[in-house]
């Protein structure tokens, strides 16, 4: 990659679960200079990815992080893992499937736990799928066919900015050519910017999603609703919405953390999955979770094909064991069950509950991340890594399971390696040390 300006087309974005693949990125002297077709979040990432970077491996010595050779960092990381009985390997949603694959192998080798960020976002969605299943489709089906679109507890205008224009309300499909051929319903606790675009906005009282979905299910079945209102929504309106759900040709329900992370998490999702399932006896209806990180779905997929389970996997018994709530990162840390941790492309110190964070920062901590984060600053060994989709290639899975390759656009800074390479080196060193009996 030289001094000439060159433009990459059909670039896959690595921000949210939309994985938009139509970006145009212009590169000059190994720096991104121009971005087209991207949303603001994506443009900002692509233009500012060099900010707050870690430039060399570090080890904590006498209480302070200081630079070290890559070899020493690999050695230190392998030794931490070798000394611990139940290490936790966490993160994985902002890296490639290929890196996750090595991560699972490492977790198995060290006999530890591996978990991805699902446990703090769409964990309840997956628990719901275990119970009920899901009637779903790729986003293109929604684009071509959906005449009714629902966003429930999510705000794509801010969190998934191109979702509406590429896949839903504003997209042009084979059987739906324009906005006027689609109806948008938004359900949320407050009038979000997404709600402002809706044909119908339904304001549900906080923590009343379950009640409202249940009432809708009853109305769809044709049962009488006794109360005058449910969750702050008048019964007449609920019945009207039920009629809209039944009479559309193809409906799509998208939901976000408003549903999965409010009290009653799993029940909320169970109810939503059941509602959509029920609707399929009357019309066509699909449900798609609005996954946040660009490859959280890929992390779920890789872990599932390698172990049978999508997250929160316990290898301490020599085989994959799964019990979210017990084997998920936050719960393990809260109970103080891990004696070391390796974090890949995630910042649990900023995001985990207080108790879990306290325990995480009190055990030997290895972090692999491109950027300086609070987790990095609390670590004992730090590896700077290359950004997937900018400085290194890798497979990522869109929120609907469509796999895409996020390509390398520029060279990473000198001596900065990919997650895969770092993880492989740690695994190799670990195996060597183990063989030597150290």
């Amino acid at each position, binding site marked *: 990659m030289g001094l000439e300006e060159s433009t990459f087309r059909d670039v896959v974005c690595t921000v949210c679960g939309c994985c938009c*693949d139509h970006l145009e990125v212009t590169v000059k002297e190994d720096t991104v200079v121009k971005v087209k077709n991207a949303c603001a979040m994506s443009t900002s990432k692509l233009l500012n990815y060099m900010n707050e970077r870690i430039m060399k491996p570090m080890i904590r010595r006498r209480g302070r992080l200081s630079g070290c050779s890559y070899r020493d960092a690999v050695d230190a990381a392998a030794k931490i893992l070798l000394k611990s009985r139940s290490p936790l390997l966490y993160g994985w949603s902002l890296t490639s499937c290929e890196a996750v694959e090595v991560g699972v192998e490492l977790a198995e080798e060290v006999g530890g736990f591996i978990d991805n960020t699902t446990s703090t976002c769409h964990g309840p969605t997956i628990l719901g799928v275990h119970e009920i299943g899901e009637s779903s489709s790729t986003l293109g089906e929604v684009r071509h066919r959906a005449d009714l679109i629902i966003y429930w507890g999510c705000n794509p205008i801010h969190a998934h900015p191109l979702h509406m224009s590429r896949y839903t309300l504003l997209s042009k499909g084979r059987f739906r050519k324009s906005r006027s051929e689609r109806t948008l319903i938004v359900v949320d606790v407050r009038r979000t910017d997404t709600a402002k675009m809706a044909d119908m906005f339904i304001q549900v009282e906080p923590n009343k999603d379950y009640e409202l979905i249940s009432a809708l299910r009853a109305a769809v079945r044709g049962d009488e609703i006794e109360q005058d209102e449910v969750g702050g929504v008048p019964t007449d309106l609920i019945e009207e919405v039920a009629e809209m759900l039944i009479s559309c040709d193809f409906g799509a329900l998208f939901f976000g953390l408003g549903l999965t992370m409010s009290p009653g998490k799993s029940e909320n999702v169970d109810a939503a999955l059941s509602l959509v399932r029920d609707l399929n006896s009357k019309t066509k209806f699909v449900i798609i979770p609005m996954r946040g990180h660009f490859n959280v779905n890929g992390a779920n997929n890789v872990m599932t094909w390698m172990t049978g389970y999508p997250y929160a996997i316990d290898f301490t018994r020599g085989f994959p064991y799964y019990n979210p709530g017990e084997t998920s990162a936050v719960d393990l840390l809260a109970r103080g069950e891990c004696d070391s941790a390796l974090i890949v492309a995630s910042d649990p110190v900023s995001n985990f509950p207080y108790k879990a964070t306290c325990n995480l920062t009190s055990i030997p901590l290895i972090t692999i991340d491109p950027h300086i984060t609070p987790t990095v600053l609390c670590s004992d060994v730090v590896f700077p890594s290359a950004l997937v989709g900018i400085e290194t290639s890798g497979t990522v899975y869109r929120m609907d399971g469509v796999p895409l390759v996020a390509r390398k656009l520029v060279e990473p800074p000198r001596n900065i390696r990919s997650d895969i390479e770092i993880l492989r080196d740690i695994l190799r060193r670990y195996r060597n040390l183990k063989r030597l009996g150290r």
Partner: protein
Amino acid sequence: MSREIAILNGTVFDPTNRIFGERMDIFVKDGKIVGSASSKAQRIDASGKVVMPGGVDIHSHIAGSKVNSGRLLRPEDHRKDVEVKTPTTHSGVGYSIPSTYTTGYRYAKMGYTTVFEPATPPLKTRHTHEELDSTPIIDKGCFPLFGNNWFVMEYLRDGKVEECATYVAWMLKALKGYAIKIVDPGGVEVWGWGKFLRHLDEKVTHFNVTPREIIRGLCKVNRLLNLPHPIHVHTNNLGNPGNYTTTIETMDTVRDMANGSKPIVHITHVQFTGFSGSSWLNLGSGAPEIAEYVNKHGHVSVDLGQIIFGDTTTMTADGPFQYFLHMLTDNKWVNMDVEVETGSGIVPFQYKRSNYVNAIQWGIGLELALLIKDPWRVFMTTDHPNGGPFTYYPRVIAWLMSRKARERTLSKINRTARRRLTLPSIDREYTLEEIATITRAAPARSLGLKNKGHFGLGADADIAVYDINPSDMDVLRRKPAKLRRAFGQACYTIKNGAVVVRDGKILKSPFGRTFYVESQTKPEIESNLLRSIETRFRDYYTVGIENYQINESYLRYPAKVRCEAEI
């Protein structure tokens, strides 16, 4: 370690080369079958044992988005069947949808060395390859789905068979796929609207084309491209009483295109489309009628889709059928429609001996295998995991080889079903050479894999040695449990010239190759086509054509099979 192996004094079954149980030696060098070996060769004493080419599974759902959704749906399936990490193997889980490593190990332990994933949604084929590349030991490949593809339906509606062929050739190349798979042609597109399609001559909504036209069109395409395997068809009406007529009609709709004695249509898991009767109450076996058709017509091959009593996970690209199964059982259900191309569904299912319909289904599969005379045109499958997990193959072999094994199961199934089946009156027992045919030689030939399924010089050194003494066959037929054990745990499995299994234990697990076909059409025809689909691609798909294609370098060990297109 020596790269030569000498397997001495075994009783060899190699139907392709007309070797039917001869005492002889087999030599291996550098991954191939050779005529002799030096004194340095690793010697394997196979006296009193059966030696066959490695098993070839033509239809088993082992990888891809649908399989993984099945895993995700069913933690309860995995908990009852775990594999602990060992020095030579990774840990994993079963049972009906094993994790990738476990899948490879379990096939190898049974002496199977080649497996084809028969239904990959093109848009998600990258996922299929990721899983295939994570599955050790076996060679593999995948069949992309074409029967509900918008481009295909539009070309065929407009009578543009050559354009359709050019498109299919490009797709197979772009996806690294191996054959044309057709599932419920037209029916899955209609299911995109939650509707059902019932007849071969019913028009697909919005596309003005019929299932019959799709099947005939793709059969012509297959011939124009000279693809190694015929069109691989899961018919319309799967799972409906009376559907055996749809099966026969589907076979018959391409009869006029027959090409000598070579099959031009493969009907898969034919048990599921072998129902006679008009309702669940008077459901019967359509196997005698289907077998009669197959016996009279050389242009058809089938695989069984045998069911196994017990718990499993059903998964097909037939979205409407899976919904029907969900409504029938009230079991949990996953549906995944894929834009422009296909759909899929998943429902856990339990086949019960006492259940009338399940008992009939069990009988249909075995009747088909026993009534079809030519073992070269009927292949053993359970449509894993739809009829049951592939790990039950030894049980199917025992049923086919031993009348006693069948009688034992017959005595336990639903009585009304037993009365209505032809099975109790069938005496035929498969011979070892017939088993070798339906489990390796015939599927390898059907797939056009010239170096698989036999021991000719230069063939791939994929070999299974089973602890069966052919002179004891009469005893074994009376003790089917022994037969099952022998086929369940190979004494040796040799893959690509390396001993990977010994006495049912994995010694090592190298990764196998991924086969895909390239049927090169004339460059100017291809570039014209690409120009025309490029303009439509972004309108149809939510991804760009650049991101849709899969480079050869994406596969761990790609193995290209070339063929000459006639266009």
